[in-house]
């Protein structure tokens, strides 16, 4: 019987490796905060973190960055008052800024087996400097590559033992696409449901993308 549930945070975070690329979902809501605590506790280092934003002075991303175990962050946004901005200024954090839509699309591309794509987004900006562009149908486009994760940390509202997930309201955000894009997708879910309880037409992330699920009651 397939059963992707694990009982403890330690079990959920087992076998994390130094140097891993970690996809961290969330846009405000939808951030798997408990799993981030597990990542911090695991002690792994030299990480590449992929998240929408570099976080603030507090909150899960700031806490993770403050450990200085993240070598590089790939995100769309760094706030002036943030751990990320200070570490970057101090030369302790590499930064790759990616427009938010391109970030989402590069993550999806990894999950969907797309090897590269052309987008007009950012083609005429500083972010395109030194990179490959091409004019397609009269529009200047930038060549973008997929972002694969070794691990994805995912938040869910409901989960069953096959790893089928739903996400609540706008807490969905990066969760379904990051779940697709990692070798190992680890989920924290607010609710556990029986197999078959989620209507098959309304599953937001099918279990094929999920490896481990931890129940973390809200």
């Amino acid at each position: 019987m397939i059963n992707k549930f694990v009982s403890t945070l330690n079990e959920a975070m087992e076998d994390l490796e130094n140097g891993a690329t970690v996809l961290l979902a969330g846009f405000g809501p939808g951030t798997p905060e408990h799993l981030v605590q597990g990542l911090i506790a695991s002690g792994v280092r030299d990480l590449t973190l992929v998240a929408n934003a570099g976080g603030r002075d507090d909150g899960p991303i700031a806490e993770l960055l403050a450990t200085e175990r993240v070598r590089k962050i790939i995100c769309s946004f760094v706030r002036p008052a943030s751990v990320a901005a200070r570490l970057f200024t101090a030369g302790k954090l590499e930064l790759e800024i990616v427009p938010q839509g391109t970030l989402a699309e590069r993550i999806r591309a990894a999950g969907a087996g797309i090897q590269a794509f052309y987008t007009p987004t950012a083609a005429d900006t500083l972010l395109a400097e030194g990179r490959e562009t091409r004019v397609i149908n009269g529009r200047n486009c930038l060549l973008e590559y997929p972002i694969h994760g070794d691990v994805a940390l995912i938040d869910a509202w409901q989960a069953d033992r096959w790893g089928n997930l739903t996400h609540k309201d706008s807490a969905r955000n990066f969760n379904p696409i990051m779940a697709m894009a990692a070798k190992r997708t680890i989920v924290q879910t607010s609710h556990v449901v029986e197999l078959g309880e989620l209507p098959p037409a309304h599953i937001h992330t099918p279990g094929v993308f999920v490896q481990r699920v931890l129940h973390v009651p809200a």
Partner: protein
Amino acid sequence: MSDTAFKPLDRNGIAARIARDIPEGWFVNLGIGIPTGVSDFVPEGREVIFHAENGVIGIGPAPAPDQVNPHLVNAGVTPITLRTGGAYMHHADSFAIARGGHLDLCVLGAFEVAENGDIANWARSPNEPVKQVGGAMDLAVGAQRLWVAMEHNTKGNGESRIRRVCSYPLTAKGVVRRVYTDLAVLDVTPDGFVVLDMIPGLTFEALQARTEAPLRRMPG
């Protein structure tokens, strides 16, 4: 020119002026800052559908403080409500709407707009650590039309944000169709900025004096 002859719009005034020009049925994304306020000024009965790039289409009015849904925010991570008929989707699907040309309009804030439609709104220098790109580059090239909402002049030394050429790093090239400021509404045309509207009491000459780029009167 006398500064007492006219009263610049406040941020809500700019937002309200923009709301006037949005017809029923448009799908609209509002950037952070002045643009976020636009939806408050669309009359109740006019169905305009607002999109947030974090996976919401059909944003409703702000919730009462005791009605906040912790799972529901806009692209500024501010609590919102969903309007009847709205829908949720994931980030890639949401940006497919933004990048695929499905939004009739996006309204962004900016530091500067140039007469060729260039927009700069994410960084004041290439080297600063703060890089507030977010979804602006995607929206700027993806929406059917881009309007900018901003103050006409900088707060400090009153420099013009309406420019021949942007001095800050670009968000996108040649995409702005119209600019709404506290002083005027300007269309970006092949011949540069054309003044569509000015606040009461302001003259064309007084507006030009506050504007680095050359302005043209509405033809006819």
